[in-house]
């Protein structure tokens, strides 16, 4: 038996595959690669397979992790290539290796948040956004697990934010808390709508770029 981890990308069309659908997709691709996923014991055995920090639908990422257990003894060599033959467009396994570090050591994630403005970025957007996102308090409304609306201060979960202006867009490079609780970078556009409606983007694109441990080093 081996505990393995996949590092994979999820972009373009694949951004729209939901978490549960992605799990199902992976479940089907494993038998094709000759690997047998270990199943839980019990009346309804289910495959032992989990995605670390599921990506919200619509966002893209080049650093997704999937943990799984197989009945065979393997260090993961050659598995990435075999899996890639059967995956949908936009999902690509970069590496497969023994899962050594526990997921709890994953502390933060880096993301690129692009605010698109169809008629050009508003004048002064860059300094104003930088100042806004540096505030001590950024309140947004968020649905809780019980489907109620709650007002949450996201400022403490936003560890770092650097902004730059491009053509018709402002790009934010942010480091946010990953878990317990984690911050969905998409919520930044909601904060902008609340505090600076004039800077509300026409569209917000989010790309997850890196996972970090507590010391700020890449988490694998």
């Amino acid at each position: 038996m081996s505990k393995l981890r996949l590092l994979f990308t999820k972009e373009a069309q694949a951004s729209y595959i939901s978490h549960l659908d992605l799990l199902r997709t992976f479940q089907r691709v494993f038998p094709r690669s000759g690997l047998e996923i270990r199943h839980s014991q019990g009346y309804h055995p289910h495959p032992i397979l989990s995605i670390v920090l599921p990506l919200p639908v619509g966002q893209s990422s080049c650093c997704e992790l999937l943990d799984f257990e197989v009945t065979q003894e393997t260090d993961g060599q050659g598995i990435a290539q075999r899996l890639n033959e059967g995956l949908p467009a936009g999902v690509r396994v970069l590496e497969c290796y023994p899962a050594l570090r526990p997921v709890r050591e994953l502390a933060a994630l880096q993301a690129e948040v692009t605010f698109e403005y169809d008629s050009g970025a508003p004048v002064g957007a860059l300094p104003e956004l930088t100042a806004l996102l540096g505030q001590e308090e950024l309140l947004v409304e968020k649905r809780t697990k019980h489907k109620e609306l709650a007002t949450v201060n996201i400022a403490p979960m936003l560890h770092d934010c650097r902004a730059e202006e491009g053509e018709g867009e402002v790009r934010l490079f942010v480091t946010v808390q990953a878990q317990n609780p984690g911050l969905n970078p998409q919520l930044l556009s909601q904060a902008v709508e609340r505090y600076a409606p004039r800077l509300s983007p026409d569209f917000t694109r989010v790309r997850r770029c890196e996972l970090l441990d507590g010391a700020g080093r890449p988490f694998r």
Partner: protein
Amino acid sequence: MDKRLERILPRVQKPARYVGGEYNAVVKNKAEVDTRIAFCFPDTYEIGMSNLGMRILYGVMNRMEGVWCERVFAPWGDMEAEMRRIGMPLFALESGDPVGEFDIIAFSVGYEMAFPGILNLLDLSGVPIRTADRTGLTPLVIAGGTAMYNPEPMADFIDIVSLGEGEYVTEELIRLHRKARREGWGRRTFLAQAAQIPGLYVPSLYEIDYHDDGTVKAITPREGAPAQVTKRIVPDLDKSYFPVKTIVPSTEIVQDRVMLELFRGCIRGCRFCQAGYVYRPVRNRSSELCAQYCVDSCDDSGYQEVTLSSLSTSDYPPLTGLCDALEPFCAQRHVNLSLPSLRADNFSMELMQRLAKGRKSGLTFAPEAGTQRLRDVINKNVTQEELLRSCHTAFAGGYNAVKLYFMLGLPTETDEDVLAIADLAARVMHEWREAAPNKNRGVRITVSTSWFVPKPFTAFQWVGQISKEEYERRVALLHDAIKTKTVTYNWHDSETSVIEAVLARGDRKLCKVLETVWRKGARLDAWEEYFSYDRWQEAFAQCGVDPSFYANRQRSAEEVFPWEMISCGVTKAYLRREYEKAAAGVTTPDCRTLCGGCGANRLTGGACHV
């Protein structure tokens, strides 16, 4: 990815169904392609991707050199609204290119309620909905599928109808269209030539005259079109294409498993069943080949569930042998086999036990009618004893749920027949009391009734549907007769069945009703969320069409049906004999026991190999 699409996808439900990119989706180099086909299914992705015919023809077309067939499904209401808001035309999933730019737009139509959806998809593509308003060779609009055996309500909108199984005729049509484009034929020339290919019906080449009472007087073919077009079949299933390597959706669909087709056609001859007649003759696929396809499909797709698919799977002669042969593979790979439908007369508990592997949930039987007399009328040759015995075995084996399907409004049905359904359910419950090893778990018996819709090419194509009020009265009668709480009664909504009955046996006078109802907003009318009975009533009234002329009228033996330019192989004379035997309550044996001389054997050029 298309920027406009990226903007609207976050605003719609289940966006994964609009992006393509699934494993095994075919992407070709446009420079090497001269024929582009948009294969449209006028329902959602989840339904369309579950259709085996669509998967077969997708494979058939894409294995042709220079041909690229892509998929198109109906957008759900939220997506359509977004697309119309930003002026984004309907696009194909593989390339994202607008459907209006394709050479051929093909529709797979399995159900009459999909008709308005076809007009909507054409409109969303920016293509004129009427064949008369389309002037060039492209896009050519074609359609096939079970609901196209009577395409007359759609005659104004479809250029060419492909009848029967599409494996061979689709290739022939594509080659002719390619030739026509290369040689610069006009549209009329091409359509007249297409009508010479067996199995292709070109509605615009036929002139229909009506009597004063609205019935058909004469059907006149023009420009050399044949008086009758006979459906095409694949004579030998072992030699036909099977989609072993097929698209695996990245989002859940209805039939999310391998569909292993064991045979086509059905030996039974239930008199109400259109599929039972139009898919004749029976053609089996060899069990060795089925086993091979099963293993290869699972290997390629990674699916762990396989449906043994056909119209009546327990009638497949080598069924037990096939299951035995697959057992080691299934055990090793955790693959489950499932059966789509069961017959109560040859149901084998042993087989069920093996397939279910300890997961005993429910069983479904379809006696269709409550009394033996009525079951004889419809030629559903299942006896009460057989049904009760099957239920007994199932309960004794640990099953604790049974679903029973019936139809109300069958020809000659009386109140006695309706009440007998309640009685039968009570007897099934009695069997459970006798047989169940552990009564503490309780039992669930579900009785479901649908409303009989007379379909063309069946023995009941002459009969009128009972009125809506009468159907509702019979539902209430049955509802009151079911006393115990263990029996749950579900009935099918009546309004859809009325419209289905109108369209199923409709003629060209319904084209304007379809256009009107679509303009009033009809789209995904197979869905309760979108169906509006009032909208249809308004459209009938506006077009001066009386729906009861089509739904409720009893036809005479002499009447010329609107679909008589089409033949499914089974002769009208045979169907009439079956109709008369039904009236007399006389049954017809299945094809394996005795050939009834239905005429379908002409399609294989001799005897049937049932």
